[in-house]
């Protein structure tokens, strides 16, 4: 029983363990890129750390700190995290393109896909929570 709780806690902390370094990496990536961009800046690059922070780290912290929140289904987690990754990478590409003075429709497609994945993951999780509430009376 004790081991099972430990595993659950470990699973709950996985998001924090992944998103914390990703957020720091994005901030450092901007600082390094900024040194080579001759003063040209893009908000998408400057605030690259925001998507993993707001969409990844903060929800993971809430899930970790509030154990009573129902467990997120694996499908929901996979889809949602894929959305966070898509949005983050799309923001990075947008920043690179804006600094270079160009654009790409493929980057926009990725952003749209990321938002759709985020929404899908959140909806699946919400449905699971509702189902859990109904089943528990």
């Amino acid at each position, binding site marked *: 029983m004790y081991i099972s709780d430990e595993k659950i806690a470990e699973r709950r902390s996985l998001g924090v363990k992944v998103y914390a370094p990703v957020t720091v990496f994005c901030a450092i990536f901007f600082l390094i890129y900024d040194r*080579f961009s*001759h*003063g*040209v*800046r893009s908000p998408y690059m400057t605030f690259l750390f925001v998507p993993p922070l707001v969409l990844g780290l903060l929800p993971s912290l809430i899930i970790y700190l509030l154990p009573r929140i129902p467990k997120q289904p694996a499908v929901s987690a*996979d889809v949602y995290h894929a959305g966070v990754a898509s949005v983050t990478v799309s923001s990075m590409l947008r920043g690179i*393109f804006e600094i*270079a*003075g160009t*654009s790409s429709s493929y980057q926009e497609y990725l952003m749209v896909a990321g938002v759709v994945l985020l929404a899908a993951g959140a909806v699946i999780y919400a449905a699971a929570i509702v189902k859990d509430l109904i089943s528990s009376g």
Partner: protein
Amino acid sequence: MRKKFLFPLIFGIILTAYSTFTLLEAFVIPSEIVYLDDGSFGGESGSNADDDYLTNEVTANAPESPEPPAETGGEPSGGDTMGGDKDDSPETTSPGTSEPETTDETTPEETEPPAPPEPIITENSYICPEFSVTITTVREYDTDIYVADVVLSDISHLKAGLAKNAFGRNLSEKTSKIAKRLAAVLAINGDYYGFRSRGFVMRNGYLYRDSVQKGSGHEDLVVYSDGKFEIIDEAGSDANSLAENGAVHIFSFGPGLLRDGEITVDEKSEVELALKSNPRTAIGQIGPLHYVFIVSDGRTDKSAGLTLLQLANFMQSLGCDNAYNLDGGGSSTMYFMGKIVNNPTDGWYNGERKVSDIVYIG
């Protein structure tokens, strides 16, 4: 455990591949290519302009081929700083070296058409009946600024050249190489249209692209067949209408620096949020068929570079009515008679950057 990480693994691979493709598509892979017939003008396809207009415009303003000007007797080349083929290039700085040979013995003087006056060529100038080019170097704002004063007899001598003899994204060549191929006397880099997928592109009377750039505030330079410059807001304009109204060239970089003698930028105006002094390339009109091509150094210990406001002030001091900022930074290059005039650098690498197009006199 394996199953748990299967989806993230596969998705990670797909995301990496997609991102790599997106970067390559934007920066490396050539696309939307329209090959030119003769290196100067558009081919059979790729235009959105009215075909009759195009025919008329090209006929009216275009030279028949990109051959060297008759006055020079060959490609005005010979600089040491450029690669490429220059075997048959004459020396550039001696007025007599490009004189074509005459055939007095075989042709009677009575039937010989009058020979065109020889161009007067010095290290910093080129004067012929069709146009004159005079280059001076000015030290302003802790920066070396190269000013090419250009007077034309006809706007057809103000031309544009495309890298690889073709229109398309990610096609690039060094300014000097394009200039040599087109036998340019004077050339500067253009608007690097090939780096963007949208924005008006018209060259030598041929409309290649009529899509409007996303966002607001994009200004274009329109050069009309009477030699007049006009700076327009791209979002409120129609490229085909401009073509019908006599446009010969449309450049889409910007911003405009001067409109009717008034400065249209301020200290906060910059290209893509760049808040630094940079190497710059600009073109301005002083009067009818009288222009200046400007290239400044920058990003070096010797030259800080210019802000857009400094550039606008400088061009106003030269007497420009309308002036327009072209692609700058590492792209900024001025070529004159086979030599690179400025010191191109992107701040890390010294030397010419490949660009997608040039503006030249020839």
